[in-house]
């Protein structure tokens, strides 16, 4: 099988103006991936499936990932120098930078005909709140049917063009998306007073509180 750079170059030649970015995987597995722009994602997917050299006819795994907004602190150090050039002190300038969060859908493609793979493709939403629509790849690979419904259910990604986009694992009236990193578990769910999960509280209530740690 060609490597991902070659696939990317062929895709760019075939679809002028398409956004195809190679995402490097720094880990030892070296499973790199292609990030596709949303506009032409479905055409590219069809091409990957039907291209005689690739024939990625089998989409094994489709899954969502939540990348919440991350806050970075950039520190710029500028040395303050006197006339002779010796450093007097270093000025530290801290700027806070927030990388916006987004949701990502990852597809692992294999070829049953040629017996090669995986080719990993990714789609990214604009943000985590209102721009969460990506084109559905269920018309290309039907194996994404339930898996995209699961991503819709647990991550809240909207798949445009999915024929039956409903919740699949949670019940229909459920509100939030439980696999998101900022999901807060409800405290009004039905539960019974067992030690399950609450063993620490129970054991703490069962014994007198330990003496407070001595503060030096």
């Amino acid at each position, binding site marked *: 099988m060609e490597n991902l750079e070659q696939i990317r170059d062929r895709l760019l030649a075939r679809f002028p103006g398409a956004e195809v970015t190679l995402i490097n*995987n*720094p*880990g*030892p*597995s070296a*499973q790199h991936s292609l990030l596709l722009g949303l506009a032409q994602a479905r055409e590219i997917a069809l091409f990957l499936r039907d291209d005689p050299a690739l024939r990625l*006819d*089998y*989409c*094994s*795994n489709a*899954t969502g*990932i939540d990348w919440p907004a991350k806050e970075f602190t950039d520190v710029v150090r500028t040395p303050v120098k006197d006339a002779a050039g010796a450093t007097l002190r270093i000025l530290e300038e801290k700027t806070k930078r927030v990388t916006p969060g987004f949701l990502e859908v*990852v597809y*692992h493609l*294999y070829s*049953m005909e040629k*017996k090669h793979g*995986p080719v*990993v493709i990714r789609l990214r939403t604009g943000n985590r709140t209102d721009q969460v629509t990506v084109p559905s790849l269920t018309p290309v*690979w*039907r*194996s*994404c*049917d*339930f*898996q995209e419904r699961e991503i819709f259910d*647990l991550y809240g990604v909207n798949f445009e063009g999915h024929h039956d986009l409903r*919740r*699949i*694992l*949670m*019940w229909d009236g459920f509100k939030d998306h*439980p*696999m998101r990193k900022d999901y807060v578990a409800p405290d009004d769910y039905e539960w019974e007073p067992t030690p399950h999960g609450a063993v620490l509280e129970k054991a703490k209530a069962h014994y007198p509180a330990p003496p407070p740690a001595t503060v030096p």
Partner: protein
Amino acid sequence: MTDPEIASPSAFPEPSVLATHSAATVRPVHDEFHGDLLEVSMGPQHPSTHGVFRMVVTLDGEVIVKLKPVFGYLHRNHEKLGENTTYLGSMPYTDRLDYLCSMTNNWAYALAVEKLAGQPVPERAEYVRVILAEMTRLVNHMCLVGFLFNDLGTSFTPLLYAFREREKFIDLFESLSGSRMMCNFQRFGGCRANPSPEWLGAVSKLVDGFPKFLDEYEQLLTGNEILLARTQGVGCLSPELAVQAGITGPMLRASGVGYDIRKADGYGIYPRFDFRVPIGAHGDTYDRYMMRILEMRESVKILQQALRDIPAGPVMDPKSRLRNFRPKPGEAYGRIEGPKGEIGFYLISDGSPNPLRYRVRAPSFVNLTVIEDMCLGRTVADSVVILGSVDIVLGEVDR
């Protein structure tokens, strides 16, 4: 069929006269007396749905015109649990996905983590893994065949015989790992315990006697006319649809697609073994049943080779660590051929002790995609058999 690694479909008999008669799809009748459709909810508490699975079936007379699978009753957000525990802490939870095949689930997860961390595995551990995985395949297929015939109405005899044999295998799992079903045996970089020569001898003895049981079992079932009538031509799945819908495992191969991850990926040490991949000719329920029987025979061959060749040595890589296991940032997708199909784990590490993303690609979940296509135009009684031949475990479907 030029590929020598693929068994010829001539192993499958042509449908009998009885079967061809029953295979004719029943057409719904449309006249003034038969106009209404009836919606029936089968499950979630229905013995033939293998757990808490529900099929919303729309019927015209007795003929299914629409079928919607509904699940999630056993949903416990396994993936979120995995993101909140350490890499090692997820290992016992993988036992509880497909609770009939904990050894293969363990292996798939260990393989994904080993890919993520670049962790080598000693030679003997690879052999032990193959032995345990093939034993699991035998156990799972025996369960499946037993339950399939329970669904057909042969109340309990085939299941009881299958369970009697299965018990011997899981007794061996118990004496090696300490638990019959929740084995929790694989670790990143090897296995937890080194099997003794006595244990390997016991496996060898059991495996050598297994074909005899299989012959007897086939004598009980394979030629049975009622079985042929109920399964041949029922729930046909075309190879094109099977590939398109991502069906894997024996169900895919019953449709005539010779794709086996043991051959395609050659993970572990599978390329060293001489075995063939059986494929079916018609893609019906009977082929799916036959596929399991033939796969069990191939598994016996693999087991005999592995037990003959297993080298001495350690089963755990000395550099692997149990605690404070922090793989470098990166991601990995590891998959193996489980008894039900492709079981894969997708992991993303950010360098912390917990995975940032832990995803289980469950075979039965994806294999259910085509349940409606297989059931359309069949009767309710057939839908039960078709579901039985898909081989689902709800612990894995709902996660």
